[in-house]
């Protein structure tokens, strides 16, 4: 599978590294040229030597998406730090480039839900954290009565 990941922060870089070690082709875009350091952290070779590719560019630039190979991508991950950027580029990937699998990170639970209802595959870390916290709190025991 050829996977294009836009946004190389903690989340994007971790997903990229896992996918590459799973044997997929991985291409990453970030506006910060230094972000490649996250992909190489803990590795003994450079990201490119490991077989990954990295493009410097802003997410909304079609040229950067093309250069990074969006036209042949089987999967697209929108994981920049901006919900709005992610939601726009995910729709660009889905509607314009017809990428078969588009996954988008949205921190705002309300919009994650609405866009999921519109057919986007949204992942909401906030919502997941809320569920886990609620579960953890419910699992607590009452204090013994004195």
């Amino acid at each position, binding site marked *: 599978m050829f996977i294009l990941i836009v946004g190389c922060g903690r989340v994007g870089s971790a997903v990229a590294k896992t996918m590459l070690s799973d044997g997929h082709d991985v291409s990453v875009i970030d506006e910060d040229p230094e972000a490649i350091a996250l992909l190489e952290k803990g590795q003994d070779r450079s990201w490119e030597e490991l077989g990954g590719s990295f493009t410097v560019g802003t997410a909304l630039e079609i040229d950067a998406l093309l250069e990074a190979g969006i036209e042949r991508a089987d999967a697209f991950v929108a994981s920049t730090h901006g919900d*709005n950027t992610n*939601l726009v580029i995910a729709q660009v990937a889905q509607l314009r480039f017809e990428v078969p699998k588009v996954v988008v990170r949205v921190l705002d639970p309300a919009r994650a839900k609405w866009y999921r209802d519109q057919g986007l595959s949204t992942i909401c870390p906030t919502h997941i954290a809320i569920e886990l916290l609620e579960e953890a709190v419910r699992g607590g025991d009452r204090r013994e009565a004195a």
Partner: protein
Amino acid sequence: MYMLIVGGGKVGWNLARALIERGHEVTVVESDRGRYATIEEELGHSVQAGDGSELWVLERAGIERADMVIAVTGDDEDNALIAQVGREKYGVERIIARCNNPRNFQHFELLGVRPVVSATDLILRLIEHEVPKYGPLHLLDLHQERLEIIELDVDEASPAAGSRVEDVGLPDGALVISILRDGAGFVPTGESVIEAGDEVLLVLDPNLEESVTGYFTSAAGTRAA
């Protein structure tokens, strides 16, 4: 009408002031607290603090009863999405979005957001208007309605030069709506004569643009003759 303006920058604030003067009910949503405080001194309760990308902020500002949503923040992705949820989630019929970087215009189109206003684009059009060029100048494009208004310079050797409007033989679906001559303009009748050097404004179906242009330029003049 109730106008919801998202983004209290120069554009949003001045727009709000002008719309209030015209008697409209206006709410501006501004995310920057300092900026919000400045606007609040003048506009009072007509401004709310909050991130207009968030649905609850839009709902608190009354998007559900808004007659118009105007998305004029400095970020194109924000404007595009605010316009998208405004129309598709809240059913607001009139939407105007600002596009700061003309290269992002395609994203607005993809999301079905229109009309989109771009200051850069407007200035470019003004420059084109001032600098003579060949071919049609697009003054208005209504993609959905399949109509456009274009401006053409009438070439001396063109079929239209020296003809009455009704004799030019324009196809159905194209109409001359103005003739600009010597710095003034008028709405022609069928009997008005088009002169070389005139600028004509036409409303037409975009499919007819190429053939209609031929009536006013010499290159295609030989073909039409």
